[in-house]
């Protein structure tokens, strides 16, 4: 029993240390500059362009991620086939790729001289230096966050509901839309919020693959990097906006996740 007390002290100190270390930089974004000045520096048209591009590109990327990712995650959750775990690992690989690697990889695959570059050019599709390229980069880095969460959420749905739905004559498509998606919704939403947060923060892959041009490819993180060199207050202001959006996303994950947790625990 005597070992318990020092341990308790250690975990408390560790938690206090982790809390300070992880929150201090975020607090500093707001503490360094008076709020009025933060708001004023948001008047910079380049900052506003970057924010609006970030919102548009991330929303477009999310749409692609949901439309393709949800059925794909459903397949991974409900089918058993040879090499399934290999497929899951491959799908999750971008989670652990450094963003710069992701950017170079996208260039090597979809750039003008990349593996599919000739086909894309023949089809008239340009990605490098285009907003479409930003969206491709965001999908690449953020999709695995959604797919792995969605797969877990689909797997957690009680199989007897599916069987009941199919026994009652519903097609698999109908069962997917009216049983699976509603039951897995909290998990799907939290996966979506995580993917959105990752997409909003994307920097390296976007810069390397799509470039940086205000209004076309310069998302908020790229604008922050550029502003850092010239106008620290404007960089802080834009950072503060991103912190607020990301915090809201995290909070929504927590709220949604709070609802899903009891169901998962009951299994």
């Amino acid at each position, binding site marked *: 029993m005597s*070992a318990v007390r*020092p*341990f308790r002290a*250690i*975990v408390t100190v*560790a938690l206090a240390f982790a809390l300070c270390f992880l929150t201090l930089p975020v607090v500093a974004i707001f503490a360094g500059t008076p709020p009025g000045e933060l708001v004023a520096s948001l008047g910079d048209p380049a900052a506003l362009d970057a924010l609006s591009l970030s919102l548009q590109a991330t929303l477009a990327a999310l749409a692609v991620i949901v439309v393709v990712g949800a059925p794909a995650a459903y397949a991974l959750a409900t089918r058993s086939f040879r090499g399934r775990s290999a497929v899951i690992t491959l799908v999750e690989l971008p989670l652990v790729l450094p963003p710069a690697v992701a950017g170079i990889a996208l*260039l090597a695959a979809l*750039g*003008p*001289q990349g593996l599919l570059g000739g086909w894309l050019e023949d089809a008239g599709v340009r990605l*490098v*230096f285009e907003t479409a390229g930003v969206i491709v980069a965001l999908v690449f880095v953020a999709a695995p966050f959604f797919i792995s969460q969605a797969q877990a959420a689909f797997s957690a749905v009680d199989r007897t509901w599916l069987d009941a739905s199919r026994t009652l004559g519903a097609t698999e498509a109908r069962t997917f839309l009216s049983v699976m998606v509603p039951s897995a919704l909290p998990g799907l939403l939290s996966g979506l919020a995580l993917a959105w947060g990752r997409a909003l923060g994307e920097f390296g892959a976007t*810069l*390397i693959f*799509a*470039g*940086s*041009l*205000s209004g*076309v*490819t*310069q998302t908020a993180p790229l604008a922050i*990097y*550029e502003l*850092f*060199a*010239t106008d*620290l207050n404007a960089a802080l202001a834009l950072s503060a906006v991103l912190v607020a959006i990301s915090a809201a996303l995290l909070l929504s994950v927590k709220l949604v996740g709070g609802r899903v947790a009891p169901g998962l625990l009951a299994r």
Partner: protein
Amino acid sequence: MRRARALVAGLCTLAALASLAAAGCGRQGPAQDAEEPLTVSAAASLAEAFGRYGEGVEGGRPRYSFAGSDELAAQIRQGARPDVYAAANTKLPEALHREGLVERPVTFTTNALVLAVPADSAIDALSDLERPGADLVVGSPSVPVGSYTREVLWRLGPQRAELILAGVRSREPDVKGVVAKLVAGAADAGFVYRSDVVAAGGRLRALALPGRLRPQAAYAAAVVRGGERHALARRFVGGLRSGRGARILRAAGFGPPPR
């Protein structure tokens, strides 16, 4: 279970102690400082030349941080304290000197802004960029290569400048970003330094700009105040103007410092 937890706690304590001890080792007296390599924040375009120069400098190969000169200056303004700051212009080191952050800057070399194209490109002159369809990549306005580029274009007159600027598809944070877009075949042309084309080793071709357009790209380095290795840092900077450093810079495509 309790034993496992105690083990984890013990390991964590050990790790914490080890990191404290390591941190303590890093802060010993001046005797050890002489053996610590210098830290050098330098313009991205200096990467290759400084890499070679660093192999033979006193104190061992420096720890380099290469980025846009503007980003590095912003870091110093925010409290970063490298031993040496070397920029692709004289403006930024002079501004830091006026702010009391660095010692008097030394102009140590020059570079030529060129129009770089992939080796097999059909683009042969600046005027080729005035036709639509050529994807041009430049440095962002705050990084020296970007401001030199704007100088050149404005000397062409607003009409030609606007035609060329209409082809800009990306403003990169530093000159190596421009080089990378060209080498990857993503862009058709970019404004970089002559030394970058030399460093790209045959993959890029440099189109020299007419003399009347050419901006004066002079590089200045300064010893950062607040460091503990001023003498070593001064010798590093001094060695760039003449002797081995100068020879390496010349071989890398840089020019002699202005008189």
